């Protein structure tokens, strides 16, 4: 057989007749290019299927973008200052972060990853509670029920199945809840991604799967992760529609995600949306990105910055003024200051809590063990004083990448 290209050919290298792709197939495949409504230069680009959100809406959400960027910068600074162990920054991905949060209603659920701190905060969760985890105080810091935001645990793709379960339960009770579940490009390789999409499709539950394709999984580029035409092309294999969108275009994200959420709420079932974006910084502060990509690679994405283009667009239409910008940056600064202050205040961690939540009621084993620790502490033992290992401190730069 041939080593010839597959372009325009059937599976076995024989040219396919035109029209073998059915209308049903086309409905599930993503558009040929990622949906874009505002180009990097800040100009509106027309799209037949996705309307441009109006100016007021864009202006409102742009403010969240400014805050989101400020949060990323602030968090990075706090890590450098040793106030936080680690921070997986979403710098450059803020349009995805903000859009994911604002397209949801109150009764909806958001399932973030460890990188989606800005999305979680945009949804309304107290920043200090969000950062509890990264500060090392506890494995989670906010009540998932308060704003309907799941925990940011690190086992990749596992949360997508939880999202399906939450949506399934809501559907069984006839509630209008939609669930937006986020993951990265790397996470799409995990078996749980596959099982989550299939379960969602088979049970026809209201989940929007939202992939932030930022081209890297730590050091591994997308090309080593998949050779599919796009990640959105995975959708048809589950019988759900897939779409791709410019992940640095806030307007396109709002429109595409918004319409997927509407569709899910109206009983239209799940869908898969891939946003093309870029991880502008290292995986986390513990990572050394120079080992696997050049500054030039990163440089190319600077002009595509999500804030830049939205700002240009809004300024060109005079929706955003100097005054308006000041107001937005003041607001962002206010939030950053609160985070700074909060993280500079030491929080008491109580070792007795270690035994509190493992079971609803402590087992007799845990009662004994809690008592042992209590006695040790009462005797004034300081377990930290005598670690004989050669352990580096938390956040050691050479530790590699966490989470």
């Amino acid at each position, binding site marked *: 057989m041939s080593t010839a290209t597959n372009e325009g050919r059937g599976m076995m290298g024989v040219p396919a007749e035109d029209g073998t792709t059915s209308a049903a197939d086309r409905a599930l495949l993503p558009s040929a290019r990622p949906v874009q409504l505002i180009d990097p230069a800040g100009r509106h680009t027309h799209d037949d299927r996705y309307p441009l959100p109006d100016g007021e809406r864009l202006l409102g959400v742009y403010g969240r973008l400014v805050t989101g960027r400020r949060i990323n910068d602030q968090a990075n600074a706090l890590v450098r200052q040793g106030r936080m162990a680690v921070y997986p920054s979403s710098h450059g991905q803020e349009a995805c972060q903000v859009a994911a949060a604002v397209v949801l209603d109150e009764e909806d659920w958001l399932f973030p990853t460890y990188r989606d701190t800005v999305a979680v905060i945009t949804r309304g969760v107290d920043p200090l509670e969000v950062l509890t985890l990264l500060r090392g105080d506890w494995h989670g810091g906010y009540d*998932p029920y308060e704003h309907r935001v799941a925990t940011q645990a690190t086992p990749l793709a596992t949360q997508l199945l939880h999202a*399906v*379960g939450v949506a399934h339960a809501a559907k069984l009770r006839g509630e209008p809840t939609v669930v937006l579940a986020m993951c990265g490009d790397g996470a799409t390789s995990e078996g*749980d991604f596959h099982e989550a999409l299939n379960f969602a499709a088979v049970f026809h539950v209201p989940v929007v799967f939202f992939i932030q394709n930022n081209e890297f999984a730590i050091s591994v580029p997308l090309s080593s992760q998949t050779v599919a035409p796009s990640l959105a092309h995975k959708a048809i294999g589950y019988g759900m529609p897939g779409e791709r969108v410019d992940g640095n275009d806030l307007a396109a994200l709002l429109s595409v995600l918004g319409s997927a959420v509407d569709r899910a709420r109206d009983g239209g079932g799940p869908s898969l949306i891939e946003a093309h974006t870029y991880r502008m910084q290292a995986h986390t502060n513990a990572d050394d990105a120079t080992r696997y990509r050049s500054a030039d690679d990163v440089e190319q994405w600077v002009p595509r910055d999500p804030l830049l283009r939205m700002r240009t667009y809004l300024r060109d239409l005079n929706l955003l003024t100097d005054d308006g910008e000041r107001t937005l940056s003041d607001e962002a600064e206010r939030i950053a200051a609160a985070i700074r202050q909060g993280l500079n205040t030491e929080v008491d961690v109580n070792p007795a809590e270690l035994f509190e939540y493992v079971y*609803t009621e402590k087992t*007799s084993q845990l009662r004994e063990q809690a008592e042992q620790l209590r006695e040790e502490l009462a005797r004034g033992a300081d377990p930290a004083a005598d670690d004989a290992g050669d352990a580096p401190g938390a956040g050691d730069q050479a530790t590699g990448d966490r989470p």
Partner: protein
Amino acid sequence: MTQTTEAPARATQDRQAGVVPPAPRSTSTFAKALNAALADAMEADSAVLMFGEDVGRLGGVFRITDGLTARFGEERCFDTPLAEAGIMGMAVGMAMNGMKPVVEMQFDAFAYPAFEQVVSHVAKMPNRTRGKVRLPIVIRIPYAGGIGGVEHHCDSSEAYYAHTPGLTVLAPATVRDAYFMLREAIASPDPVVFLEPKKLYWSKEEVDLAELRRTYDDGQAPRRIGRAVVARAGTDATLITYGPSVPTALAAAAAAAEEGRSIEVIDLRSIVPFDDETVCESVRRTGRAVVVAEAPGFASVASEIVARVQERCFHSLAAPVLRVTGFDIPYPSPKLEHFYLPSVDRILDAVDQLQWED
């Protein structure tokens, strides 16, 4: 933990707790008792759901879910796509959102694909969220061997779960316990790994399932999570066991009685939490103990029991605590499994080695 010391024989247990057991009117198999427990729990609480592979129209490959779809509808008892991590992960989400999912893993070894979901989420989510998110999930696992199953159909996987903090791990051995413990597991706010010894599915007892339901619903069934039971009273040595090995241990005790040795048999029922009190009370009294379990012995629940007993009862021990367990090999093929399984002979051999003075 209290009733057992005073009430060594299992038969008297409910009576002690103030329940007058009715004259048994009918018999039920272990499988049917589980089926009834599921039906009664679903009847009692509309948040209880049952799902997994083939649990719908087929009623499960062991028929434990027989009739549930017909009775409660496809939304309450249903088949999933064939993916165990999917089943477990979806259960986590459902439990987060107000449901009480009971899931069936078709065979023990087919729960392994769900291991990450179980260890990293089911067991840890309540702790991670400081108790805000409780996961009232029951993971039903047809468990262990002795049924002539092909490879991967007879694993004893309790150690994996018992070693994982956050999970409750139960293994009933009688028809009554099957019913009451499954009801209790479903009612528990914590995730429960519920191990159903396959070889006991067709065992029978004289019980009236309607009676059991009334007893349970009236709050008259004594708690079983965390409570071992003395399945047979004795004075010379203690056999500590659970699940599929309970009948074997009882048979060994009966055989020993003929030889004039009085052997006590403790059925743990609850592996986690562990009932130190009942176990230690017995061993301190008898001074000798053998742990019997089907799983490979190395780093197993049996190891734990030996370790705890010698830690806590050291000065009462006349001999080392011994183990009769599966060998440290993969579970054998059907024609060889009887060489692997703890047997009456092997238990009696171990008892003989307990350094009797005479």
